[in-house]
């Protein structure tokens, strides 16, 4: 079936990516990042960034309000837990649908403008959602205390089959509890499906039309394309990805707060995408992992760890080095991230993926052209 077909190259990339994701508990160990909570975040924010890249990377429309869809996804999932069932699938499905509808409305209004005006409109709508969640919409969002599970939740579907347990329930999949590693593997499978669909979009005529819009929207119009529904579809798809990520956050920790919708969260996904490589498939994933790593691990380094790390330096210099380095870790992690971001944008405008490509090109220059390069000029 055409739906499940990938080119050989894409199938290989998917297989390698699956291998990397599934073995994450192994290769994150040396970095001290192999605890389930963080790996869940790696998978979830990778989905968020992949989806964001479908809009920003392909159409060039820079949204500054995608955290709103993340928040909507989380709220929807928690409500699904409260009202229906602790099973994760209905929660994900509902979250994707509701955030998609939300994206349809915001996208329809925001796409009346392009460039910076589009960005400002999305930012405005997201901040509006954030503030509404704290004020008018508190019956739905539970305001500052965040939306949480309670012992009195109706959970209509669950309680029709079982009796209420003593404590708060946890999310599950067909009866299997999703916490810790099982939670991570659930997120990982969803990530792989999300990645596969992004590959389909990138390789499809639809993806090519989106690239055309980014490259020259006016030419697209004079070529016979109605560009706005194309951009809107990309916007809705990326909103659904964000909603999916938000729902997974709720699956791994059934709690939804409005701070998830704040503009800093929207900015974070922009950073992830640019850091990794706009318009590439893998780039946003790498950006997401790097930023989440910095946020969670780098920020917990203290002078004790640094002191041990710089043990090899003789005593008089040792304290100075540790003192300087300590400014860049712990609470100073954002300084390091900022410097890294500046370096990448200045020297590698295509993000980490451009660095990978350049290194690859260096290696290829040393070798004679291979069969792959021959295909560029087939016989007439």
């Amino acid at each position: 079936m055409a739906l499940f077909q990938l080119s050989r190259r894409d199938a290989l990339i998917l297989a390698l990516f699956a291998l990397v994701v599934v073995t994450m508990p192994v290769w994150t160990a040396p970095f001290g990042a192999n605890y389930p909570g963080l790996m869940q975040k790696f998978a979830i924010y990778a989905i968020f960034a992949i989806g964001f890249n479908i809009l920003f990377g392909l159409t060039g429309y820079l949204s500054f309000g995608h955290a709103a869809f993340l928040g909507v996804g989380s709220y929807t999932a928690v409500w699904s837990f409260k009202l229906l069932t602790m099973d994760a699938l209905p929660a994900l499905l509902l979250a994707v649908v509701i955030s998609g509808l939300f994206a349809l409305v915001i996208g329809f209004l925001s796409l009346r403008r392009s460039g910076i005006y589009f960005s400002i409109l999305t930012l405005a709508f997201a901040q509006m959602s954030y503030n509404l969640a704290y004020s008018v919409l508190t019956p739905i969002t539970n305001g500052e205390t965040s939306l949480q599970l309670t012992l009195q939740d109706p959970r209509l579907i669950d309680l029709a089959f079982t009796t209420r347990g003593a404590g708060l329930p946890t999310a599950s999949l067909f009866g299997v509890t999703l916490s810790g590693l099982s939670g991570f593997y659930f997120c990982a499978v969803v990530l792989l499906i999300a990645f596969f669909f992004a590959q389909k979009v990138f390789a499809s005529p639809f993806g090519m039309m989106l690239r055309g819009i980014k490259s020259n929207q006016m030419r697209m119009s004079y070529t016979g394309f109605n560009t706005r529904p194309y951009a809107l579809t990309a916007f809705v798809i990326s909103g659904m990805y964000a909603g999916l990520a938000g729902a997974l956050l709720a699956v791994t920790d059934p709690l939804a707060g409005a701070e998830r919708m704040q503009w800093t969260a929207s900015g974070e996904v922009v950073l992830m995408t640019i850091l990794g490589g706009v318009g590439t498939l893998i780039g946003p994933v790498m950006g997401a992992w790097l930023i989440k790593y910095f946020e969670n691990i780098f920020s917990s380094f203290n002078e004790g760890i640094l002191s041990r790390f710089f043990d090899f330096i003789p005593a008089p210099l040792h304290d100075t080095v540790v003192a300087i380095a300590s400014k860049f870790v712990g609470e100073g992690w954002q300084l390091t991230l900022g410097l890294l971001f500046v370096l990448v944008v200045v020297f590698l405008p295509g993000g980490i993926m451009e660095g990978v490509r350049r290194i690859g090109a260096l290696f290829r220059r040393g070798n004679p052209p291979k069969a792959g390069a021959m295909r560029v000029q087939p016989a007439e």
Partner: protein
Amino acid sequence: MTTTERNVVLHVDDVSKNFGGLHALSDIDLEVEEGQTHAIIGPNGAGKSTLLNVIIGRLAPTSGAVVFDGQVLTGKKPHQINQLGVARVFQTPEIFPDLTVLQNVMVPAFARRDGAFRVNVLRSVEREAALRDEAEAILEDVGLADRRLSHAGALSRGDKRRMELAMCLIQHPRLLLLDEPTAGMSRHDTNTTIDLLQKIKARGMTKVIIEHDMHVVFSLADKISVLSGGRIIAEGLPDEVRGNIKVQEAYLGGAHRLEAVH
């Protein structure tokens, strides 16, 4: 020839366009017959590009209307006008600089096949062999076959023009508007383009062409309209226009310029 035999496919009906107090176009009437190449010539600032912009829907006329094949184009959006079978080559090439040459030519082919909007994520572009073959054949026609995997933004200006022409041709438009299609080209490339346009003419495609190069105009045009100061000051067969004194004063700057192209 009686009027019933003439099949007018494009009708510019009493079009005027003002920019503030400036009358860019005044009472323009133009009839383009099916299968013919209609050249519009005139000095700089005569309103030639404005007229093309009005036809293609980029500018709304202050008064008057443009009718193509019984359909009023005025007020329609650019993509709707294109879907009716009107394609345009711009004065400054409008291409997709971030895509490859082959992709640049394939994108318009999708517009022709799938219409103004279709979300197609099931089948990859790689599997669209028929469209790719067609695009490669047209690139062969315009002489860009060996550049098909290049980045379009890296092409020379002349190559960009030829690629833009290929982008229009793959749509098999019923009406092709060309805004100085050979500007910036070498003599050799110009002649190649003339040959190409003559080949298209043999297929019966209607064309409106704006051109400064009289060699190109007299090689291709079936009919010429001379625009000056936003008005049509002369119209007729190439030989009639060539002999028209008024034209020579307004545009050609005397008979010696014309002798040069004989």
